[in-house]
């Protein structure tokens, strides 16, 4: 791990993050915009599967998920900048490990959803109830998104001492 941290610290990206004062605050703002896009669109889709906002076809809300993917991409890019800037603050941070684990579980949940439930959900009409398995996946998605936000906010408080 120390070798990896040392390598990251010598990359041009790390230099860029640490030598321009505006990079960190602007990246944080973009990170939060990405978070809002992702949780908003994915969360709305999840809520519909759970029965809130019935009357909207899940297929119609599914079209919004491309913005959720864009939000996730923004968060990953800016998150990478943070890690490039101060890698030791993340690699030795328990909250960061929880956050990454939750993101991994979200990825597994997405794969499960598209493999097992998406075809049935795509055929639902505006007033139809989602299958039980899809509801469980939507619930898991909301819980995991909340955990990602919580762990993300706790990062500062689990940082190793400088």
């Amino acid at each position, binding site marked *: 791990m120390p070798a990896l941290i040392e390598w990251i610290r010598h990359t041009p990206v790390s230099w860029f993050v640490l030598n321009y004062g505006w990079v960190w*605050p602007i990246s*944080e*703002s973009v990170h*939060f*915009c990405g*978070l*809002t*896009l992702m*949780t*908003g*669109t994915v*969360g*709305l889709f999840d*809520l519909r599967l759970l029965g*809130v*906002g*019935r*009357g*909207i*076809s899940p297929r*119609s*809300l599914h*079209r*919004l998920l491309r*913005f959720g993917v864009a939000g996730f991409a923004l968060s990953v890019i800016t998150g990478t900048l943070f890690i490039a800037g101060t890698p030791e603050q993340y690699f030795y941070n328990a909250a960061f490990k929880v956050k990454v684990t939750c993101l991994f579980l979200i990825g597994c949940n997405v794969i499960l959803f598209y493999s097992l439930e998406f075809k049935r959900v795509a055929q639902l009409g*505006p007033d139809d109830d989602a299958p039980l398995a899809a509801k469980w996946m939507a619930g898991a998605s909301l819980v995991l*998104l*909340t955990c990602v*936000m*919580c762990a*993300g*906010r*706790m990062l*500062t*408080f689990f940082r190793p001492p400088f």
Partner: protein
Amino acid sequence: MMALFVWIEQSALSVWVRESPSLLAFPFILFLHTLGLALLAGISVALDLWLLMGAARARRIATRGLFRAMWLGFAINALSGVVLLAAYPAKALTNWVFYTKMVLILLALLALEATRREVFDEARPGDTIVVTSRARALAIASLAFWAGTILTGRLLAYTYVILLASDPP
């Protein structure tokens, strides 16, 4: 004004939020503020995008549940925001970025309410949603207001002049 800030900073709530080592103090309140953002701005942004992308000619829907979720987000953010403000009153109230954020939140909420009346009001005639040019303009404005709110919210941490009135620089 500084005397008022000092008085707030010395209150039990302010000291607890600022100095308690408990994760339920400052860290948890910050998390609540993010959760409220996700509920209020997240759903609002998703509805804006839905109006701009796919709502035209969709059947009129009962959005009461969604608006309740957004108002719950607002309540969480208003309460957690007041507690965060109590922790560092001078940091926010001596910074023009804070007031810009407040104005942007107000504009976003006004746009949300105007959208509700324009598009989702259940008293409106007709069975289908009509996305008027006004509704589109409101959705675009709402997206801009929320982006501005997030930007100014994050910049608060970097633009303050005074952190604590009781401990001036």
